């Protein structure tokens, strides 16, 4: 177990380095720069700024300087937001995104597992068909469409829910719904098919033959086996939630990391792009390791090597 974790950390460092390198060079291939603006700035001023942030040096040297900074935990200052460090921005904005993302992940896990199991138990009945329709919709409709539809009906037409900001708990409802819809739908489908599979297994017959009640059969014997594919999906789901939050945050004007990330790309805020990319990559990698460990805890047949 310990050996496994050490191995995964080593691998994670390599992955993060690759992500950082790729982003660094891709970013520099995009035309434009951080100090271009509609107002004409004198060439001297631009040159002075570039010299200050080391952007006048050859790309290779910039890369070495940046990576060695990151290796020492220094992500540098934002090029566009005067006087703020990249680490400071992430620290300020990430909790907001994490809250929305975390709630969506929880909502989609709970709803997905619950509805998927119900669909499997009521196989072929009306409820199963209804759940199937909802899950197909959830998979087919992209989140920005859901955002707009929700906003139109609940925000504009009926005026029940606020459409922007995060000042009260009602503000969370629409963004979370938009963000959780796809993963919920996906988990429902996964759960339904794996539950059907498990219910047909011999050990479920054994459980019944022992005289256990339906509840114990379902919650103790079926659920733990059926939930395994869902656990596997948690990794990709986190990645989806992170990227999905870019769109959702933008539409609902939520002051989260997603907005910062998009803003940084549009303004060529090189250090902020790098910082958020590395941060999100690390987050996804760490969560994947956590998922693997949880998997091992649920299913003793899995050995982590």
């Amino acid at each position, binding site marked *: 177990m310990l050996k496994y974790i050490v191995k995964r950390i080593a691998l994670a460092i390599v992955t993060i380095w690759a992500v950082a390198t790729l982003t660094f060079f891709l970013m520099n291939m995009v035309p434009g720069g951080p100090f271009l603006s509609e107002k004409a700035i004198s060439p001297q001023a631009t040159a002075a700024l570039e010299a200050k942030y080391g952007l006048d040096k050859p790309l290779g040297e910039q890369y070495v300087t940046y990576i060695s900074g990151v290796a020492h935990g220094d992500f540098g200052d934002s090029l566009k937001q005067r006087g703020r460090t990249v680490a400071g921005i992430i620290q300020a904005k990430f909790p907001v995104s994490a809250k929305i993302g975390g709630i969506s992940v929880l909502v989609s896990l709970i709803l997905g597992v619950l509805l998927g199991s119900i669909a499997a138990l009521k196989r072929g009945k009306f409820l199963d068909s209804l759940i199937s329709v909802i899950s197909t919709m959830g998979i087919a409709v992209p989140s920005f469409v859901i955002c707009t539809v929700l906003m139109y009906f609940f925000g504009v037409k009926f005026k029940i829910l606020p459409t922007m900001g995060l000042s009260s708990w009602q503000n969370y409802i629409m963004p979370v719904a938009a963000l959780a819809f796809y993963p919920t739908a996906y988990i429902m489908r996964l759960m339904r098919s794996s539950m059907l599979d498990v219910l047909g*297994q*011999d*050990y479920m*017959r*054994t*459980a*019944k*033959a*022992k*005289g*256990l*009640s339906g509840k114990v059969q379902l919650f103790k*014997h079926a659920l*733990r*086996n059926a939930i395994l594919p869902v656990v596997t999906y948690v990794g990709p789901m986190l990645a989806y939630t992170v990227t999905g939050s870019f769109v959702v945050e933008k539409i609902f004007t939520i002051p989260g990391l997603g907005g910062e990330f998009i803003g940084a790309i549009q303004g060529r805020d090189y250090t902020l792009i790098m910082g958020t990319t590395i941060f999100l990559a690390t987050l996804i990698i760490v969560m994947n390791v956590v998922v693997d460990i949880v998997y091992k805890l*649920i*299913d*003793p*047949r899995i050995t982590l090597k």
Partner: protein
Amino acid sequence: MAEEYLVDIKNERLSFFTPAGEVKALNDVSIHLKEGEVLGIVGESGSGKSVTAYSLMGLTAHPGKLIGGTLQFNGHEIEEMGEKEMRKIRGKEISIIFQDPMTSLNPVYTIGNQITEVIRLHTDKDKKQAYARAKELLELVGINEPEKRLKQYPHELSGGMRQRVMIAIALACEPKLLIADEPTTALDVTIQAQILELMMELKDKLGMAIIMITHDLGVVASMCDRIAVMYAGRIVEYGTTDDIFYRPHHMYTKGLIRSIPRLDTKEHERLVPIEGTPVDLLNPPAGCPFAPRCEACMKICLREMPPVTQFDDVHYTQCWLNQKEAMEKGEANE
């Protein structure tokens, strides 16, 4: 008959209502069994062996429905009991061992967990006592290092060991009846003998009755007091083990016995199979279901279901040929 039976199934009829139509899985099946007796049910796949036994535990799979007959077990009227009452009997008074030990244990729980679960469900033993009992059970079924095994998961044990664990689970509450549904089919031949021996030993020790479902005649010969031969959802011949092996009357039973490999066959002699395939239970023929495969088939066999021909108190068949012989003998006696 004033005798007290532990199991008394009378004229059981059970059908599976599938989208394609009604599949008559059991037709007038009657079985009785006293305490401590071993009954073997033999027959090919789909003949209704397992369905008979499962219905006794209320484990009939979904589209299946009991449509006639009475099932008595230890004073309970099984056919009238609800799911809740059935649960109290399952695992406590009737237990079952399934065919495939590789898949019959839940892979995500320890052996200890799966044994103590049934003990704690049906008795008021606490966690510690249940654990001690589980250890005792593992010793009883001949598993070495029981302490260690209790903490292991099913995938860490071999097939034979897992079947021993299944037996331990089945015996946990000292049931009156143990149903063994082809308990050795999925095991190696050497392990098969061990498991059968173990079951016989435990039967003598605990005094339970056993219903042994199998298609292996060798198994029933060594273990059973009585044998029911099933074909297409009917008992075509019923008798003591000696009746079935030495005085078989039904053509199907004769065919089964002829198809057993023997030590004294000559080198080039071939085994004699029963030609043809089992009947389609969706559209069973009007007459004897075995008639299309029977070498002694008469006209009446295709038209009408034969009545029971009783040879003595126990031994009977359902066959026109036997009926005819019996009648001729009866006439001669007169």
